[in-house]
């Protein structure tokens, strides 16, 4: 055991926390990967654009609400969004959905309401969903102004419809489901299914690798750092808001359960908890790595700073209104 002033590291505790985060996160990650594999194998790229409104502004607004009918936690949404972008979904819409879905969905609405019973649950739930929607849509509109070359990782960029080169050079019947659908028309169901399984497995291993790193870092903070040290910050609206956002970043909690943790931080003002809930669902330590699978690192850091500053300012403004 390593013991310092505010840092006490116990490997067994670290391992316990690490495993619990993995056990909780893996099913959702797997669900996202399976959906991603199914989208990859069974949905042609043109379907994505056919159902979107032609007006890009309305499309972004709709994407912000998609989580209500297609709920997804933050780990799973990254996988789905990566696949949807490759299928031709506009990056602005995909980004809006990715940020909004972990907040604007019925499961999170219910868990937030349940967690804040006795602490103005309607207000907290409404503000969380509204802020989540508004901020996601705002980011979507910003992303619309940026060229894909400045946003996406080269591998994703190269796999976009119209840019795709020979992504999968295979011999006999290709298992790249995209090629299968778009080049051969209607491939055999078994081949599609194998393609979906392969795609899902690959996606899962890609993200699981990052989940392992994120879970390890979050567990280190979770078990080794004295969290009671941040309590004195609760007296200042600005410091409390920022400190809880930093805490949300390092704790890397799932958006379906974070409300219960926020509700228990009774020393902190209401708006600081709101910031914790909105920021933590959109950006945390594990998401920093996961977003890097899709977006260029520069954009990911820009998103981190933008969300941090934006949510801080909104919550501080709300604190002036005595919330």
């Amino acid at each position: 055991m390593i013991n310092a002033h505010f840092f006490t590291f116990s490997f067994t505790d670290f391992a316990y926390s690490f495993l619990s985060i993995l056990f909780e996160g893996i099913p959702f990650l797997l669900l996202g990967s399976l959906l991603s594999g199914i989208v990859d194998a069974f949905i042609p790229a043109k379907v994505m654009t056919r159902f979107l409104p032609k007006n890009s502004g309305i499309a972004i607004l709709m994407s912000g609400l998609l989580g209500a009918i297609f709920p997804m936690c933050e780990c799973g949404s990254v996988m789905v969004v990566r696949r949807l972008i490759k299928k031709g979904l506009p990056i602005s819409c995909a980004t809006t959905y990715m940020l909004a879905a972990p907040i604007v969905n019925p499961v999170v609405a219910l868990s937030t309401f349940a967690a804040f019973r006795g602490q103005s649950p309607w207000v907290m739930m409404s503000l969380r969903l509204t802020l989540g929607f508004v901020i996601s849509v705002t980011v979507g509109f910003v992303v619309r102004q940026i060229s894909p070359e400045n946003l996406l990782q080269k591998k994703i960029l190269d796999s976009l419809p119209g840019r795709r080169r020979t992504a999968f050079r295979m011999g006999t019947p290709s298992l790249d489901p995209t090629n299968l659908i778009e080049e051969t028309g209607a491939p055999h169901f078994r081949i599609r299914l194998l393609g979906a399984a392969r795609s899902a497995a690959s996606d899962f291993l890609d993200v699981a690798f990052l989940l392992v790193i994120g879970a390890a870092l979050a567990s280190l903070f979770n078990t080794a750092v004295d969290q009671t040290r941040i309590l004195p910050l609760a007296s200042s609206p600005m410091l409390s808001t920022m400190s809880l956002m930093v805490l949300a970043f390092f704790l890397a909690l799932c958006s379906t359960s974070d409300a219960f943790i926020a509700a228990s931080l009774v020393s902190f003002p209401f708006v600081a908890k709101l910031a914790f809930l909105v920021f933590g669902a959109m950006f945390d330590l594990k998401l920093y790595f996961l977003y890097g699978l899709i977006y260029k690192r520069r954009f990911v850091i820009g998103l981190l700073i933008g969300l941090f500053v934006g949510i801080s300012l909104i919550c501080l403004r709300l604190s002036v209104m005595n919330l």
Partner: protein
Amino acid sequence: MTNSFSRWLSCATLVAWSAILMHFYFSGRIASFLHPMFRPFVLISAGVMLLLAIGLALSFSSTDGGCDEEGCAHSFGQMTAGRIITFLILLLPICAASAVSTDGFGASTMMNRGVVTDASGLNSVSKSSVDFPMPSGDGTAPSAPAPAVASSPVVYAGTTENAANDYLPKSKSGAIIVQVPDLLYAAQDSSLRPDFQDKTIELIGQWMPDQVNNSKGSRFKLVRMLMVCCAADARPVAVLVEDGKKSKIPEMSWVSVTGRVTFPTEGGRMIAVVKADQVVVTDPPEETMLY
């Protein structure tokens, strides 16, 4: 390392993860890691991973292709030199953690998380929702109206002493069996307090020394972990126990306490303190976490 080897390594990784999940599920160890609601997902995930591994193996055998070529977005498929490191990171930490992890947190982590000793520190009850009854100047017991606590332990919400007596579970010796949060809620809820005040109760928890108001060293904290989803979000909740003598029980041991409940005011707030008649070391309960 050949492409073929790396592909089979993917299958092996999925199978290994699946095996670890199944081991935790079927050995019952999963109970200390996850809320009951989430446990079936672990088994389902293990099965799906196994199916994916089979699907992956079949896809490899049906073609000589792979996503190793330029344009593939799968990072693990792209790496050559780093591929082995990727798989080591996927396998080693989870295997090592499975081998060394205990089924509970030690004292250092509990202290780092801050031990909650009153219901205002629990979720779903806020300071503003609970009217803290303070003693009058002459030291007589407070008489506050029942606060509007939205989430109180329903099972103990008896309105009269008789009703409460009928309702509360009891041990063979007649002591009321309670959990730590029940006493924390009762300390802040005047409608619940009579159910426990001066009654003999029995509760179980882990022994931790109390550092505050404990000059004689006869007081300790009886701690339980309260979980929402998984152990990573669990918070330690504790009730104070007055043992009457200095205890030699090792820290974090599971103990069963039988004693009388009191609600003194300390530090400006009403707290629950159990005056212990008996403190005995016991086995951990089947469910070490509270939900």
